[in-house]
């Protein structure tokens, strides 16, 4: 199946791209996709998206379509054609 991943703010900076199509051999959860993306891109994406225990950072915002999802919720499964957007926190200045 194929999903679209969009990157914003520092996640975009870490990958150097704003979006990509990802082909997956089998259905997976949003968190599993994040770990797959880190495996493909390596650093610095790894330290932006994952904590020292390899779990998704709690401060990364994830949206399936336009709806926020929790990356620690294993019930969030991706379907063919879905778009997952990953945003890092930003602030003022």
């Amino acid at each position, binding site marked *: 199946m194929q999903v679209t991943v969009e990157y914003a703010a520092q996640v975009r900076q870490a990958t150097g791209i704003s979006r990509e199509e990802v082909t997956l051999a089998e259905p997976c959860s949003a968190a599993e996709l994040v770990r797959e993306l880190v495996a493909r891109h390596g650093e610095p994406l790894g330290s932006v998206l994952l904590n020292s225990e390899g779990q998704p950072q709690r401060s990364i915002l994830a949206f399936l379509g336009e709806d*926020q999802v929790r990356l620690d919720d294993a019930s969030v499964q991706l379907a063919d054609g879905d778009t997952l957007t990953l945003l890092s926190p930003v602030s003022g200045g």
Partner: protein
Amino acid sequence: MSLTDEERAVYEWQIWVPGFGETGQEKLKDSSVLVSRVGGLGSVVAYELAAAGIGRLVLAHAGNIKPSDLNRQLLMTHAGLGQPRVTSAERRLRELNPRLEILPVGENLSEENAAQLVGEVDLVVDCAPRFPERFAMNRQCVRQGKPLIECAMYDMEAQITTILPGQSPCLGCLYPEDPPAWKREFPVFGAVSGTVGCLGAMEAIKVLSGLGEPLAGTLLTCDLRNMTFHRRRLLRQPDCDICGDAANDRGVS
């Protein structure tokens, strides 16, 4: 408080906005807003609110004007380099609106002064660069039941949401912990901070006057590289330390 003839003349064009009118203008006149930092975002928020006829502004920002402020901090001037930012901000705002009451505070918002500063006003606009500052603001706004407009930017991107305590997710729902990768200095254009500042000021005007629909529970994300705007629905987190079920049971909020 009713409007003077001068105020009716100054605000005539916005009083014509359907649903706002003279009643909306009177609400703005009776309102007070804390703008936490008057940098790239906060300068524009404060300027737009001063132009719109807000009654009272509390401006919190430490430090003196640096050359690197001048690409975006529109209340600062080249002539003011080395002088306190809040002094420059106060002077520029008074030039625009001499009726405006201003409380300039030459320090940044912190855990120590957050309760007092938030207690001074009806609504807060968060334009601060550091997350501990933003979390302190959020905690106090939730505790005191004050609306909080969250403005943020990076590069050519913008994010904005409005937190209505008890009705929408709070900043702690979005970010349960201090983002480890965030650095307080980052790439940005003044036109990006100005865009977010105008959006933030409009949200403040809407919430204070009861006009339109604020972004409560919705994160507006803007990518100005390709002018893509999204309205994204946010989740309220029952386990939020600030506004979640356990926090409510403890009487935190």
